[in-house]
């Protein structure tokens, strides 16, 4: 741990030297969970907008939604609704995770 965190600290200035903090396995687990949640959130974010609303639209042409097709719906409405759901979901899950890991400030 200490080796990983070596840096240039004035050796005679004890007060400026921050105490070494210990990053536990639990902390890393918390962070890995967060990263995984971000990857999941951003994957869905990309699928609904860049996928369904844009690049994959020709594949969804056959599915009709009120006078247009599914790709058009995603581009003009579906992706926005999904974004809102995603941000609330991410907030809810991370706030719950903070509680589980006692990470609240």
């Amino acid at each position, binding site marked *: 741990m200490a080796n990983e965190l070596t840096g240039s600290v004035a050796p005679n200035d004890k007060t400026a030297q921050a105490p070494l*903090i210990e990053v536990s396995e639990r902390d890393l687990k918390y962070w890995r969970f967060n990263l995984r949640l971000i990857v999941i959130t951003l994957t869905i974010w990309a699928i609904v907008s860049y996928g369904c609303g844009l690049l994959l639209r020709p594949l969804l042409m056959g599915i009709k939604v*009120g006078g247009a097709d599914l790709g058009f719906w995603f581009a003009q409405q579906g992706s926005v609704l999904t974004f809102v759901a995603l941000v609330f979901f991410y907030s809810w899950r991370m706030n719950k995770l*903070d509680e589980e890991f006692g990470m609240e400030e």
Partner: protein
Amino acid sequence: MSQFAINFIFVMGSFALYLAIAIWSRARSTREFYIAGGEVNPVVNGAATAADWLSAASFISVAGLISVGYVNSSFIMGWTGGYVLLATLLAPYLRRFGTYTVPDFVGKRYVSKSARVVAVLCLIVISLTYVIGQMTGAGVAFARFLEVSVETGLIISAAVVFVYAVLGGMKGVTYTQVAQYVVLILAFTIPAIYLSLMMTGHFLPQTGLFGKHAASGMPLLQKLDQVVRDLGFQDYTADVDNKWNMFLFTLTLMVGTAGLPHIIIRFFTVPNIRQARWSAGWALLFIATFYTTVPALAAMSRLNLLETVYPGGVEEPLVYEERPEWFKNWEVTGLLKFEDKNGDGRIQFYNAGNETFASTTAAERGWAGNELTVNNDILVLALPEIANMPPWLIGLMAAGGIAAALSTASGLLLAISSAISHDLLKNTLLPNLSDKQEMLYARISMTGAIIVATWLGLNPPGFAAQTVALAFGMAAATLFPCIVQGIFNKRMNSKGAIAGMIAGAIVTIGYIFTYLGFFFIPGTALFPNTPEHWILGISPLSVGVIGAIANFIVGTIVSLSTTAPTREIQQMVARVRYPTAKPAAVN
């Protein structure tokens, strides 16, 4: 009572409200001035963020842009999707880190005055170019509704912003923005509901868009496709060929949104990281209310306009002398222009640029060119008259358009002034300032920013229309990667951060200037701004995301080839990730 009097009462009433809020929310410390004391409720901050975000241009012009058809869906996805990036990659960590401004984070995280100053410069380029359009937008909104000149409107707006922003700083701006959000969202959605009920029978414009067109019984979008096709336009829902550029453009808007300083600083005002996360959700919900109404309004207004011009189907254009009253009103402003090219006294409005259509169908019908020039802003501005709404609703729209301009301008001005007083003065040039002195400097900076912005609004540089593209490109290419690297890459050091921001700025500005002219001066472009001259088919408006990639690559390489950040810095990053990490036992 005349319409002017009603508009006047609504606008003055809203100003009185903002000024009352300003007096109530005076800032008493720098903490209140910069981050509203850090005590803002997450829902309140969400509404303030939405007002910060929705500008005069969103209110008046976006529906017109979207009404072009599917291709402009980029704006809908781009201007909402950025909040997912903001909520997952930036806002919570920045709140936990606890700074006053965006350059403040950069300066503290990289422990570097140079990095701080580079960030301040990027911020000023971004926010100042962005604010020009807001100031002119405020003037235009005034001129439209209150029959004053654009210049007078601009100066009145600046004076109102001056009172609440100088007195209250972030605190004043926050609470007036909440009031402004309420005004602008009501002013935008109520006319949309009217139109939706009229066209489709649906109360919600969002469902009306995919519902049935009441007059013909056909699905609305199918009807619209049919009408525009019969006039030689491209189908409204038609797919586009250049998906690559649409993809990059949408991504640039999203990443740029997440990197805009005036939006990021809003998340410093909530009490803690939990609330910062929730607040991002509320902000996006409030913004989504607007951005799901816009496409419905766009499609319905366009169809409605075409139905007005072709009351008996596309073969029978409207007789000019029989045009409705609202048509005459907007001809006066020049937003609608009629020129009878074939001398038949009827209005032919079609796509004369479509050569096949012009030489066959149009020629057979005896049409000699498009006779109606429509400024797309009319789709929103003329809405109350088209849908026969009561006069008070027009008054509300006047107040709403002005609220949209003021709220965005004040957020931008705050981002600029706090970067000057807190980062440039307090943390770089004049480190010995007391809290009281810093507050005074903050107020002076705000005054200075308002004067500069007003001057720029009155004398807009010729490139004003291009500057929003520059602002988004720069936000995507400089600040966004710098902040994200600061949180997610422990190894990132100040040299890497600075090199990255400079590389991102050079790529973005260089590419934009190559096609749009050196400092947008006409005639100085190296290549014509047409797709065949673009590198890899990338339009200059979409280059921000390429700049961001350059920033990530250059930053990482420079960082890895120079010394690692100190232990303190790495611990600081650790605390942003897991705040409860305990101090290790002394060994």
